[in-house]
């Protein structure tokens, strides 16, 4: 075990999987120069054929990853920033998500599309999207959104090995955080959530970087005598609904923390799942702590307060703990 950052975990996962399997290769804009630091030394180690700088044409090279996967390769696409998935939406939704199905299982699309959630640092609306909820509504795409280096490595390795297409959403607020990460064979199955903190009074389900804010809030709540359990689904598709429900059945209260925009967010889905399946256990409304349905502005003074914060989560928890527990007859 070594303490490495989230970005280093991505690099390790890619490196190990490329060493392990010749059919794995990486492509994306400026991956050789290695903008965010997840492919350092890769050209030297693997050659320029397997570490490919693409033209600026997301629909083209993401679709090409689909084509390459169909003939037996295992591409990792580094799409850099999630906002750049919009130009590629057609290849992702029409080809990558649907080809296996529409051709009755003839197609196989083992590929990973990585992109970071680049919010919170004055990059303005066109660079600050957190679009995973959109993709959750499209069948055929597995989605990971890890919150720590160790999960990042284990899930990315699983993603590369998966025969299904996987979107990896990498929260830039986690990039520099260090964590104990097992070296070598450390593979976390897609679809298994994790209890990041045990608790008894309230369940806080965090999404991506929202998990870390939730953990801080849990600590603050502890000081108030409120014991919060923090659940990290880690994979958004398939979603570990059972783990979430188990926790809510225990605590009777839930808050969903999600940096995405509120409407049709992962938080909305989790909330709907809870009320649908654990209603009898619920002792209070399920609250969502998300980014309101506004765009993200450049000016830091007005951008920062829009994201889920410790204060907002603590407030929500207080509200939920104090909620009337009787129901109208």
């Amino acid at each position, binding site marked *: 075990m070594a303490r490495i950052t989230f970005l280093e975990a991505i690099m390790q996962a890619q490196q190990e999987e490329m060493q392990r399997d010749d059919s794995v290769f990486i492509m994306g804009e400026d991956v050789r120069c290695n903008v965010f630091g997840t492919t350092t030394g890769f050209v030297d180690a693997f050659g320029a054929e*397997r570490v490919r700088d693409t033209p600026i044409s997301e629909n083209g090279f993401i679709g090409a990853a689909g084509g390459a*996967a169909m003939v037996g*390769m295992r591409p990792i696409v580094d799409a850099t920033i999630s906002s750049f998935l919009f130009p590629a939406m057609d290849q992702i939704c029409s080809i990558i998500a649907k080809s296996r199905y529409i051709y009755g299982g003839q197609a196989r699309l083992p590929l990973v599309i990585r992109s970071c959630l680049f919010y919170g640092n004055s990059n303005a609306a066109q660079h600050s999207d957190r679009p995973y909820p959109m993709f959750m509504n499209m069948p055929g795409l597995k989605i990971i959104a890890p919150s720590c280096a160790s999960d990042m490595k284990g899930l990315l390795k699983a993603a590369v090995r998966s025969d299904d297409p996987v979107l990896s959403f990498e929260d830039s607020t986690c990039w520099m955080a260090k964590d104990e990460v097992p070296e070598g064979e450390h593979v976390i199955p897609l679809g298994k959530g994790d209890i990041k903190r045990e608790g008894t009074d309230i369940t806080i389900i965090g999404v991506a970087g929202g998990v870390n804010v939730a953990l801080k809030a849990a600590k603050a709540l502890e000081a108030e005598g409120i014991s919060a359990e923090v659940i990290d689904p880690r994979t958004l598709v398939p979603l570990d609904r059972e783990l979430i429900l188990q926790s809510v059945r225990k605590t009777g209260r839930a808050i969903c923390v999600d940096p995405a925009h509120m409407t049709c967010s992962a938080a909305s889905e989790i909330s709907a799942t809870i009320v649908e399946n654990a209603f009898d256990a619920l002792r209070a409304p399920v609250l969502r702590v998300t980014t309101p349905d506004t765009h993200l502005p450049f000016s830091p003074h007005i951008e920062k307060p829009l994201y889920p914060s410790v204060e907002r989560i603590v407030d929500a928890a207080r509200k939920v703990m104090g909620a009337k527990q009787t129901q109208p007859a």
Partner: protein
Amino acid sequence: MTTTGENDPRLEKYRRMQRIRQFEAKAEKIHADGEIPGALHTYAGMEASGVGACMALRDDDYMVGTHRSHGHPIAKGAKLRPLMAELLGKKTGVCSGKGGSMHLSDFSMGSLGETSIVGSGGPVAAGAALGAKLQGLDRVALCFFGDGASSEGAIHEGMNLAAVWSLPAIFVCENNRFGMSTPTSDAVAGENVADRAHGYGIPGVIVDGQDVDAVEAAVREAVDRARGGKGPTLIETKTYRYGDHAVNMGRELTPRGPEHDEWVKRDPITIYRQRLIEAGVAEDDLDAIDKAVADDVADALQFARDSAYPVFEEAFDHVFVDRLPIPAEVQAHA
């Protein structure tokens, strides 16, 4: 050169064109009878384009097609039974009943998708070519697309990618003079789609799409270039579809000018049949092919009709490798 075991590649070319023509004639008829659900876009009139192009390919080469998907797989050598069964939505269909008329893709023949999102095959073909290159195989990937599709960004991006990486790809624009109802000249800037090649620094070739030999020769040259590591080629086959955009649309979509009759007179199968006869092929041999194809089509239809529909659970297969869990409340009413 044919790779299907037939001895005379000329006869094989003729046979494949006949198979497309007759397969479609049957399909069109039973669609009118309500036996085929969904839309049906016929390829009749364009057979030389698809067959000429595919005859220049090896069996292990890749191909990507379009919503007008009956022609390409047959041109590449696909069996008719699974295609017809697919049209009827049967489990034995080439796509297990999931795809239907717009998606008759036979992966066993190297077909990587007949995709009904216009233009979307471009990046896929580039990717297949990239895959072949990375694997050190000398396979090529051919992308069929329409004149209308040339306006899509996906086609541009696929061609630019293939060109800049010198991928073994061939882009075949089947210019049948119309999108759905819109004449090519109203939608596609420039004289010829092939003129776009210049901007990518690759060869752009225009070929008579009603002449199967001419198409084959042009594609063969492009395939040789591609296999030789010299990169992609853009080929435009000037062709024509006889039918409306799709069958049974309630009213005619595609406007028909006086040139319609001219085109129908230049029927690719008639032209080629004549050429073969002039080259000494016995008419009887050609008639025998026609007859054998008719039998094949009848057999395919019988097979399709005899086949079972998929069962409901199969709707949950192939979203992912593992079958999706089926919600009980849905299952209860299926």
